[in-house]
């Protein structure tokens, strides 16, 4: 216990205390500069649930998570499988493909902001080459959320490739036995690789879901929650109510943070409850 004390103290101070304080703040109203003033109980939760914008915010949050998690897992798996090729320079390719992991969210978001520029951006340049109409990637409400998700997928891909490559390396050499049994490449991927890779896939599913639900930097830099609130996820709504335009509504934001915490816990618990039994731990 004595040896655990420093870690417990740090965890308590920087993780558990802010969590407790968030729940505490959600029970208080705030004055104009954000100080907790009047105890309002669960009234802010009621206000939040009655808010017409909460539904849109939750839909944007779930859509964004879906558009980030599934493509980053599928593409990560495809790239990790490609990296199993037995060629001389494979280590160079492995290193290069993991590079996006080293990017900060801010840097990646700025680069993608340039790509999405309606006039001089790369994406509209490609569309122009194909004689297609330019797209308002970040200005069209129906295109903005997928555009931000593309930047997030790119950021997440390096980490997924790294973890799945490590998972593939750890698979025992039973390919030879499968090959002798007459299994083809696709059959081997389906019946040998994927079942043995489920621990890595499950880990990535849980982690990328949590990361996508907590995404903030790319939304703030690319769209600031717009256009027409189409990219306002729950995390961005928390920021908006607390800090944007001097809103200082820390009580309502804390209630939102508590709701986000409950959603993250519920989704993670559901993933463990529904999918963990299908994970093949060796």
């Amino acid at each position, binding site marked *: 216990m004595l040896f655990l004390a420093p870690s417990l103290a740090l965890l308590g101070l920087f993780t558990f205390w802010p969590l407790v304080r968030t729940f505490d703040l959600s029970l208080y109203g705030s004055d104009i500069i954000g100080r907790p003033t009047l105890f309002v109980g669960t009234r802010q939760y009621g206000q939040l649930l009655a808010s017409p914008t909460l539904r849109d915010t939750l839909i944007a949050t779930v859509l964004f998570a879906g558009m980030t998690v599934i493509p980053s897992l599928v593409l990560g798996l495809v*790239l990790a499988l490609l990296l199993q*090729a037995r*060629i001389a320079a494979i280590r160079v390719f492995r290193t290069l493909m993991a*590079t996006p992991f080293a990017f900060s969210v801010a840097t990646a978001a700025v*680069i*993608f902001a340039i790509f999405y520029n309606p*006039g001089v951006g790369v994406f509209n340049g490609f569309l122009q080459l194909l004689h297609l109409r330019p797209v308002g990637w970040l200005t069209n409400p129906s295109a903005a959320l997928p555009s931000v998700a593309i930047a997030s997928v790119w950021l997440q891909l390096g980490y997924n490739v790294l973890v799945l490559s490590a998972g593939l390396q750890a698979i025992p050499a039973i390919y030879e036995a499968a090959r002798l049994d007459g299994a083809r490449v696709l059959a081997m991927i389906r019946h040998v690789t994927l079942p043995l890779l489920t621990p890595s896939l499950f880990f990535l599913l849980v982690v990328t879901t949590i990361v996508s639900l907590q995404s903030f930097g790319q939304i703030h830099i690319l769209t600031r929650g717009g256009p027409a609130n189409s990219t306002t996820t729950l995390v961005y709504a928390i920021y908006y109510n607390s800090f944007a335009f001097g809103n200082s509504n820390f009580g309502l934001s804390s209630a939102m943070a508590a709701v986000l915490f409950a959603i993250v816990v519920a989704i993670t618990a559901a993933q463990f409850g529904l999918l963990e039994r299908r994970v093949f731990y060796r």
Partner: protein
Amino acid sequence: VSRSIGRGLSYLVLAAVTFVLLFPLLYAISGSLMRPGTEQVPAGAASL
């Protein structure tokens, strides 16, 4: 011969995928080498 072709194809596919994946990085590096104010902005660039 077929093994050499397969290896060559593997290199080709991996190089193409790596190029696409690292395109944002390459674009950022090439952009950092440009002198400001020398880009050719197409007419009507800000109209969208």
